[in-house]
């Protein structure tokens, strides 16, 4: 434990935190709800950012409901996890939003899912559908995962969704929407509504249907674009919790596939961004180049998407000379073609003029909102899990983290363009250094009630998985996808900006799948409601 970390822990102890456990780079503290806010404040002023919070029903093991707050201190490379236990009868915790704005969503989610009331802030339902019955909390252990409470079928949409098309957009997208409040042509506020993609994944993983072995396949389906990130993050969390040593070769293979996934994802985004700006040639060419990476992914893993090669303790598919050869060839092609395309795209006048100076997120706001990934890096925040908390084989490679300070849509675009090139270099280095040996451990044992936090740099930013191990399956598995962290930043980007920039700005955070979404526009002056269909925008890597 380094000195600054020790000092911080001392300070936290003085504020009422009790050290429960120190495991590797994770420090677990338990705190009462009275000391929560001062602890959160101290952590935030020490440079921490909130990775996520999670409600856990710990009644069967400790007789309490707990809320976990996971703080990352990226400069020190450690995580501080605060646990606040409350009794079922008096299930209340104070909000930490005034100290830590990034806690907005996860507090509401904990309220929805395990029924802990959050005091001191306005609350609303976030994740569960509006017709979900009161007092039924899916993540409580006494709730059966397959219960489908009677449906008060709403054949009509709520009034504000006045357009008959429902929240659906032309170019692919998920059914989500934002509400934009405008004063004339200026955006005043933004509220995200939706979670149409809530499929009950966290609950399903702890249901009788699943075992540790099967969850990677479930994790991969959290998101069809960055699924491998999720399965990697899950296995990493379990391996960390159980102390399983993964063979080096497996770590390299995982890293290679993660970067291949980043390539496909960034190329996909660039294509969609071009399409949103009416430049379809850019879309077609970006996706043509992307197709090389899709074919490569299938050749390496057996599937174009949802690769299905992650297992606890390693991977299922080895790489041979042919595959490595094909990978290098594909990378050369992609690199050559991508450089040319990027030059062309950036010379299209409409792309330049509509991306620069729009959707600005300042460095200060970026930090306050704990944004991650290209969104953070475009706002001058040097934050990349691959550097801050090196995992798998990323210690073995050198690469540049693109950093821009403008914080506008163009900066986010340029970050991604550079990352494509960096990813290609990373894969080349990994192949160069690929060690021999087995690709998975022979057998493993996972003791129950161990905890671990794992983080991986997804194409959209930091993906966090928190696990409490159980018997044969996770006791609690919390997933925080990067978009979950970035969507609230849209408020800062859109507020005060012209309405016309909203589509691109929403797409610029690469919300899981950038596609079009609907926006409900409230005119505060006249009180009237308009509905605008805009492009870009969609949900957090859905849960």
């Amino acid at each position, binding site marked *: 434990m380094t000195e600054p970390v020790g000092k911080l822990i001392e300070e936290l102890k003085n504020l009422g935190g009790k050290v429960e456990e120190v495991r590797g780079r994770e420090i677990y503290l338990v705190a009462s709800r009275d000391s929560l806010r001062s602890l959160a404040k101290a952590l935030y002023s020490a440079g921490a950012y909130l990775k996520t919070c999670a409600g856990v029903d710990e009644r069967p093991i400790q007789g309490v409901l707990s809320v976990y707050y996971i703080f990352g201190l990226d400069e020190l490379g450690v995580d501080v996890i605060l646990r606040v236990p409350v009794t079922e009868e008096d299930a209340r915790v104070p909000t930490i939003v005034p100290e830590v704005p990034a806690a907005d969503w996860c507090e509401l989610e904990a309220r929805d899912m395990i029924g802990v009331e959050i005091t001191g802030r306005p609350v609303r339902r976030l994740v569960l559908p509006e017709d979900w019955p009161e007092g039924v909390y899916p993540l409580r252990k006494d709730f059966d995962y397959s219960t489908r409470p009677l449906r008060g079928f709403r054949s009509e949409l709520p009034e504000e969704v006045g357009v008959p098309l429902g929240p659906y957009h032309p170019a692919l997208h998920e059914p989500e929407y934002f509400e934009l409040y405008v004063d004339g042509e200026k955006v005043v506020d933004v509220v995200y509504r939706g979670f149409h993609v809530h499929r009950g994944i966290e609950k399903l993983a702890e249901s009788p249907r699943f075992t540790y072995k099967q969850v990677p396949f479930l994790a991969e*389906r959290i998101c069809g674009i960055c699924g491998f990130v999720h399965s990697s993050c899950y296995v990493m969390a379990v391996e960390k919790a159980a102390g399983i040593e993964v063979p080096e070769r497996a770590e390299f293979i995982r890293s290679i596939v993660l970067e291949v996934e980043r390539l496909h994802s960034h190329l996909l985004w660039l294509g969609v961004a071009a399409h949103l700006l009416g430049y379809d040639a850019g879309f077609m060419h970006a996706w043509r180049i992307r197709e090389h990476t899709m074919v490569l992914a299938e*050749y390496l893993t057996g599937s174009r998407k949802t690769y299905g090669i992650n297992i606890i303790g390693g991977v*299922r598919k080895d790489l041979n000379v042919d595959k490595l050869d094909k990978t290098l060839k594909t990378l050369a092609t992609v690199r050559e073609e991508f450089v040319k395309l990027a030059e062309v795209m950036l010379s299209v*006048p409409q792309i330049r003029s509509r991306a620069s100076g729009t959707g600005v997120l300042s460095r200060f706001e970026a930090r306050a909102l704990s944004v991650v990934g290209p969104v953070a890096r475009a706002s001058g925040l040097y934050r990349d899990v691959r550097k801050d908390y090196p995992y798998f084989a990323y210690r073995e490679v050198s690469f540049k983290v693109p950093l821009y300070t403008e914080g506008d849509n163009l900066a986010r675009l340029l970050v991604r363009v550079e990352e494509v090139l960096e990813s290609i270099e990373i894969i080349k280095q990994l192949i160069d250094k690929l060690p021999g040996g087995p690709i998975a451990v022979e057998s493993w044992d996972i003791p129950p009630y161990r905890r671990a936090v794992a983080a991986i740099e997804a194409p959209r930013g930091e993906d966090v998985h928190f696990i409490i191990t159980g018997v044969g399956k996770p006791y609690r598995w919390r997933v925080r996808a990067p978009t979950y962290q970035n969507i609230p930043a849209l408020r800062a980007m859109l507020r005060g900006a012209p309405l016309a920039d909203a589509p691109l700005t929403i797409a610029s955070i690469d919300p899981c799948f950038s596609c079009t979404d609907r926006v409900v526009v409230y005119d505060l002056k006249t009180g009237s409601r308009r509905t605008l269909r805009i492009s870009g925008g969609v949900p957090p890597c859905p849960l």
Partner: protein
Amino acid sequence: MSLVKILEIALKTGRVTRRYPAEEPLVTPEFRGSIEVDPSKCWGCGACVKVCPPNALTLTPSGKSLVLEYFVGRCIFCGMCAEVCPAKAITVTKKFELASANLRDLRSRVVHEVLRCSVCGTPIAAEAEVRAVVKASPVSEEYAVLCPRCRKERFAKSIGLRVGAPGGGPS
């Protein structure tokens, strides 16, 4: 004026479209398509059913038989079933042309005869599984056709122990 370069790129690249279905699809040798269960090899043991994440494979008793059903409509094409199958009865094919106008055609079944305990008649397992067990291990046929309870009883008797009351099962 580098935006005109897109024409240069297009000219150099030509047309990349695969004329599927007239031409071969863009499938690599590693692709995992739907699975096939070889009924002559399948034991009906259910190892695949236990590992299948979406429950696309199910093993259900139906009358005198045990039915292994594969519903490709829910399959996630992970291939774990083929990996765990002790009889190597499952192969992962490259088939992806699975479109169907009804759900019925997406189901395939292997029907196993159920072996009943030769003493009390309780269903034990699929006949094929029992045969495989007999073949693989030195369990005598005499024991293999008994349910666990009767097997225990007979074993106890054979080594001269009395279990439970005379004529009754173990308590």
